[in-house]
């Protein structure tokens, strides 16, 4: 393979490359027409389905909307005010934070565990590697159905196990705390395949002599893990963390299928709240304000990721 490809490149680094490496040709006079033809379709699509809707969402968030979804009464920032004052929305925000935080921490922890287990040099390890990456091929609805069965009351696996072991039966999806646990577990499971593949790759790229050196210097396996492995894969960990974080903020499918935001709104995460307000109760103004808040949060996180990628250390 004669070139390296970079699916997740750093934006600003690319720019600096451009400056370092001036191209050996100057723009032709007709370049701009070619550019218009080449770039035009993409710009039109992005314009119609990304830029315009963002502005429109902002606009709608300043209005009350009528029965059929048209903005009728300008209320300024009142929709935002209502949201901030609403304990339900604050609870939704808080639930989202709990969910996102738990998902990221657990995904990374288990992901590192899987990756660490898979770098061992053992007979048949390739099978385990394949298995560990399996959930990458699982879509939300399939994951939701698998887990819904596990968590479902009376017929579900967990309740049957609990019953046969004479443990107290938990109403997983109808008790607020447990429902949150259930969707977190399902989300983490679904994330593991992707996370494992990335972290495993990173682990494989840690030069083995670093471990040799550490071992000779008297570092125990635990110490090696904490002081060699983790620092070496920390850029990848950060990358995975932000990708998981952003993904978790956008979670919708699992919640829709497993809990529909309940019980008692315990799993009513931000995207779900947008869906409910817009597409169940037709409260588009309010839902737009919620969308804006969501957009700001995600844009902020993406920005942080960009900034980091830009500064990120590349170890040779």
């Amino acid at each position: 393979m004669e070139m390296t490809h970079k699916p997740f490149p750093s934006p600003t680094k690319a720019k600096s490359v451009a400056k370092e490496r001036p191209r050996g040709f100057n723009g032709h006079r007709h370049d701009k027409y070619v550019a218009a033809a080449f770039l035009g379709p993409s710009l039109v699509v992005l314009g119609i389905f990304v830029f315009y809707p963002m502005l429109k969402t902002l606009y709608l968030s300043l209005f009350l909307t009528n029965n059929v979804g048209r903005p009728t009464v300008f209320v300024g920032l009142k929709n935002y005010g209502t949201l901030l004052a609403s304990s339900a929305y604050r609870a939704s925000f808080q639930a989202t934070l709990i969910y996102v935080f738990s998902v990221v921490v657990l995904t990374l922890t288990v992901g590192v565990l899987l990756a660490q287990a898979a770098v061992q040099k053992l007979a048949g390890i390739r099978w385990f590697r394949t298995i560990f990456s399996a959930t990458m091929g699982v879509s939300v609805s399939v994951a939701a159905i698998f887990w819904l069965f596990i968590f479902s009351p009376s017929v579900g696996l967990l309740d049957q196990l609990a019953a046969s072991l004479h443990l107290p039966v938990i109403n997983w999806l109808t008790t607020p705390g447990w429902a949150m646990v259930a969707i977190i577990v399902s989300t983490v499971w679904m994330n593991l395949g992707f996370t494992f593949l990335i972290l495993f790759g990173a682990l494989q790229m840690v030069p083995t002599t670093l471990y040799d050196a550490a071992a000779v210097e008297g570092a125990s396996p635990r110490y090696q893990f904490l002081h060699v492995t983790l620092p070496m894969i920390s850029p990848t960990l950060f990358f995975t963390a932000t990708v998981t974080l952003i993904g978790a903020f956008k979670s919708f499918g699992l919640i829709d299928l497993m809990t529909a935001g309940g019980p008692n709104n315990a799993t009513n995460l931000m995207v779900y709240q947008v869906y409910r307000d817009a597409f169940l109760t037709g409260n588009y103004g309010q839902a737009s304000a919620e969308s804006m808040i969501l957009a700001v949060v995600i844009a902020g996180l993406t920005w942080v990721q960009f900034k980091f990628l830009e500064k990120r250390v590349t170890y040779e």
Partner: protein
Amino acid sequence: MKRIRKLWGWLALLVVGVTLIGTGWATHQAAVARAVPHRTKILFWHEMTGPAQQELLRLVQGFNRSQTTYQVVPEFEGNYNEAVQKVIDTHGTTASPAVFQSMDISTSQLAHTGNITPVQKYIDEDHYDLKQIAPGARAFYANRGVQLSMPFNTSQPVLYYNATLLKKYHITPPPVAPTYQDITRVATQLTDRSHHKVQGMTVEIYGWLFEQFLANSGEELANQHDGHTGTPTEVNFTSPGALTAMHWIQTNLQRGIFVNYGAGANAQSNETASFLSGRLGMFLQSSALIGQLTTGNPDRLGISDYPHPVGKRANGVAIGGASLWLSNDKSAHVQRGAWDFIKYLMTAKSQAAWQVATGYLALNQRSAQTPALRALFRKLPATRVPGNQLRATAPNQTNSGIFLQGLIQERNLTQTAMEQIYQGADPRRALSTAQRAMTSYVQNNNRANGYQK
């Protein structure tokens, strides 16, 4: 490079495979569709699941076979809550249905959108005999003498109990019109005498049931007499009727004779499953469940009226279920076909078959004389109860539904409050929060629609 070529090979294989499956399916479908050329398609949206869906599809097939001009194409659109906004959102596009089923509480909202053709138009054109339709049901979907939509699947909330279990533990069944106390007694006895093998009772966390507690207590949920005399501007979730019912549930939960199955579609299927397997003694639910509760159930099903507070007369409950609406964005020809379909669904025969299969009440008064329904009543006398309950109810402003927009929001909010109460929260506090949120929603909505400054 080699690996990539291999990958492409596999991908190609996959594409071919799925395409084959797809073509197979498509030709199968084509064979089905071939029977009906040159017909006008009538898109029909519904929200029926399980046996009700199967029966509805049979009725659709019956209609399609009964004439050669139209072909009704049924599409399942998820639950009632989802469907309302879908109907509103697609109006005026080719995706929109010509005729759709929409739940009771969406009446005010749909009427206000201006997207619908009141069925009254065709009733007048056809001199359709509206009297054959049960008055209690039809009044719910009429406004100022204009029939907006046609009631189709109508249910009554009732109390179900496992008569076989009660007999086994020597428990006197609840009376026909039980009070909260009557039910508590039965639930306590069931739980105790079965040594907790049977859970006494449950009430699903469902806004509709909350509304019925108010209705049966004769209390208004929204001002302007539940919207029957004007546009409501505020709601009241904290009336004595609401609080009494919630306290009753909470107390029973704390006593351990009440089990919480939560909210949503799963809750209903779980409580049904438990009831059928003899692990649950009693529950409040729509009469539409009768079909499911009688087929293959070895135990005898007992049915009573919806409960009411002690020391008060039952005011009667409002109907539940949904009605059929005509969308005004289709051509006159299509609308006419949609109306013909509605008429077909409302015949005495269709309605009788409908009740037998589902438990929804046959709304055509002549259905009672059909052999199908007679056979049902003979076999399962308990199935008469919902109809009797409906007939016994003298319609008034608190038991004829709530003419308020945004009732989905109301259900979300009251369900949240119920969930909190089930988890042990103070009923008044939980309901007050919901009430404030709903009133603010109603007022915003009124402002946005220009009903209120």
